[in-house]
């Protein structure tokens, strides 16, 4: 078991930043996972949030601003959920470095909001010891006070405050109850805590004994068992009904991605086309107009279309997560996932990958085991994402006549589509096995999952979550995809001959297509498909637009429909080969970018790209040969 992350503070480049001179106070929110930390953060900061990564690690950095009554602003830092400050995981190291002022670019906070679950104090109070020992002004927020009250629990905040030497309040971040003292704390300069006693913070049993003692002196009465949760678990974890509900949830998510998102996606498509046409009317025919319409509009539009799908998916994941069902789903899926060397927490990210690998990779953040997380990230793009659909649809429609296979239930085209889904899934499973038995081997026993009580999701939290994800998605569409679209357009329009764009064959894009032809010829592709493959490196579905452009630019093929044109250029074996190529290849800049971000480096995205490209080439080559042999 490698434990290489255990670098000492002294070994890290010290970049000690003290309280910044600008006068803006910053307060860190600290708490164990499931303490309601993020709910409180959302309460205080509302829409004034910023999400980024801490340098060199995969931990999400979440900052926000709280506006005080007098108009002043306070920076709020939402630290990752932790059980202790012992720097063993990346999360704990980040929390510790920020709190001690050793995180480059983050000034040491002026105070700490320590969020603990009041229904679970015997465990959560343990974190108070290392936090109070920091000596920063601290407000201890005992969250979920409503739950504690309803379940008959009690705690004397005055007595607890005396024991901890810091102010203690009861609050409910979800209902917005008892938050006034938090605002006062944000406004004023507090004093360092003076706890009655502190245990040796390295020793867990001693810390727990301390927490028990402190809790007792504050006459802490733990609440009764969560009856509602027990009742719901009797249904959701029932040996027969449980898996059935699980199946229904999975089908529901699928259905929402593929059917319910459709009208919204058509709407976005219409909006893109319509706005493009409006812009086109405003401008005289010129190079700039062509760049805007054929480059920017088409490129960015082809990606924006997926926004409804991604939002729906995150709405579902948000509901599942906030309600507490996600943990149950992970529990149910664990045994099946374990067969391929993964674990229950990989299930939802992989399910999301059927919509788009990008949100799927963002969703892997819930997996604590780093190796499991990377394995999940690496196989996610093999799942059949929705960007492959336009490509599959075009090729299948062009080459496969529709005939009933199972009466009206299943036709040849749907069967081909289903086959491609199975192909991607099989490749993902095989890759997971390969990874987990080689470079990402890890102890299987690391699966530890807390089952939070069921709660009703709030619109506020769901809304903020959706906003957050769409911001990330749109930012990418506005940068990476836009850049690629413009570059492609330029390549297709240079060199100018007599002030006009050259025929596609003689353009730079054409030359590139010809240059790669020898590599893809064994797969049954010519240079035109080659250009499509290169442009689809930006995003898979771009190949459809590119082929349209290519054939549109060729006078001879101009009158033929795209499907007919394809049939002239691609043999049936070549079509099968192209489908297999798209099933396996990592043709997606956004995925590469997000993998780089999430794994904090180029190593994994490069390995992934090389692996998937090799798999795609080999798979397409075999498919081409076998189909040719079968058709001969």
């Amino acid at each position, binding site marked *: *078991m490698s434990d290489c992350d255990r670098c000492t503070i002294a070994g890290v480049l010290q970049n000690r930043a003290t309280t910044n001179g600008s006068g803006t106070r910053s307060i860190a929110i600290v708490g164990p996972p499931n303490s309601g930390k993020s709910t409180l953060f959302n309460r205080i900061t509302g829409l004034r949030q910023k999400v980024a990564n801490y340098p060199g690690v995969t931990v999400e950095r979440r900052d926000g601003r709280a506006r005080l009554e007098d108009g002043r602003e306070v920076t709020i830092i939402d630290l990752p959920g932790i059980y202790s400050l012992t720097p063993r995981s990346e999360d704990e190291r980040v929390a510790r470095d920020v709190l001690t002022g050793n995180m480059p670019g983050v000034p040491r906070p002026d105070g700490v909001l320590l969020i603990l679950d009041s229904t679970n104090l015997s465990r959560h109070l343990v974190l108070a010891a290392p936090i109070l020992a920091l000596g920063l002004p601290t407000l201890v927020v005992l969250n979920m006070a409503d739950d504690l009250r309803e379940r008959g629990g009690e705690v004397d905040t005055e007595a607890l405050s005396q024991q901890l030497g810091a102010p203690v309040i009861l609050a409910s971040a979800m209902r917005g109850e008892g938050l006034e003292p938090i605002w006062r704390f944000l406004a004023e300069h507090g004093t360092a805590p003076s706890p009655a006693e502190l245990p040796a913070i390295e020793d867990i049993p001693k810390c727990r004994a301390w927490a028990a003692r402190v809790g007792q002196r504050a006459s802490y009465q733990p609440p009764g068992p969560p009856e509602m949760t027990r009742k719901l678990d009797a249904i959701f974890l029932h040996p027969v009904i449980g898996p059935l509900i699980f199946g229904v949830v999975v089908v529901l998510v699928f259905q929402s991605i593929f059917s319910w998102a459709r009208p919204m996606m058509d709407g976005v498509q219409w909006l893109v086309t319509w706005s493009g046409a409006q812009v086109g009317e405003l401008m005289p025919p010129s190079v700039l107009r062509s760049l805007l319409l054929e480059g920017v509009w088409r490129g960015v539009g082809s990606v924006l279309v997926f926004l409804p799908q991604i939002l729906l998916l995150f709405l579902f994941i948000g509901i599942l997560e906030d309600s507490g069902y996600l943990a149950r789903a992970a529990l149910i899926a664990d045994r099946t996932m374990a067969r391929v060397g993964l674990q229950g927490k990989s299930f939802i990210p992989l399910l999301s990958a059927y919509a788009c690998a990008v949100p799927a990779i963002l969703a892997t953040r819930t997996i604590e085991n780093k190796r499991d997380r990377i394995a999940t990230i690496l196989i996610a793009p093999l799942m059949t994402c929705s960007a492959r659909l336009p490509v599959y649809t075009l090729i299948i429609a062009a080459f496969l006549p529709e005939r009933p296979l199972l009466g009206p239930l299943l036709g040849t085209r749907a069967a081909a589509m289903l086959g491609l889904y199975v192909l991607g899934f099989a490749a993902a499973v095989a890759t997971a096995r390969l990874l987990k038995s080689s470079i990402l081997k890890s102890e299987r026993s690391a*699966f530890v999952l*807390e089952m939070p009580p069921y709660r009703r999701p709030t619109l506020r939290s769901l809304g903020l979550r959706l906003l957050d994800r769409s911001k990330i998605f749109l930012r990418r569409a506005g940068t990476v995809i836009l850049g690629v679209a413009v570059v492609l357009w330029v390549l297709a329009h240079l060199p100018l001959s007599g002030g006009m764009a050259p025929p596609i064959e003689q353009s730079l894009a054409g030359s590139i297509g010809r240059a790669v032809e020898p590599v893809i010829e064994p797969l049954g592709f010519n240079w035109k498909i080659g250009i499509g493959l290169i442009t689809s490196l930006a995003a898979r579905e771009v190949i459809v637009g590119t082929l349209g452009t290519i054939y549109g630019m060729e006078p001879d093929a101009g009158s033929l429909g795209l499907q007919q044109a394809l049939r002239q250029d691609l043999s049936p074996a070549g079509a099968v080969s192209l489908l297999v190529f798209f099933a396996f290849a990592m043709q997606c800049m956004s995925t590469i970018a997000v993998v780089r971000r999430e794994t904090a480096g180029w190593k994994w995205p490069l390995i992934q790209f090389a692996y998937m490209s090799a798999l795609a080439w080999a798979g397409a080559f075999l498919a081409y040969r076998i189909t040719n042999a079968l058709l001969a």
Partner: protein
Amino acid sequence: MQPSFTSRPSTLVELREGEQGVLDCLDLPDDVSRRLMELGFVPGNAVTAARSAPGGDPRVFRVDGSEIALRCETAARLRIRPAPSAAAAD
């Protein structure tokens, strides 16, 4: 640790749903056992077996008022001592 009892459960995995045991020691690598201790699996603490996933693995355990799921292979490494009352009745 010598397994000295045959009929009485000696690890968490042997507890049936609803049964309780007092944790004796964690026979696991240091980082895993620290993580479990942070979640409440501390020697001396009472652990109750709750529901399990439909296949019987992983299993959910109730400790310190919260519920934690562990795979059976992990639960089998968490040894329990016989409850004092049960020992006295012997």
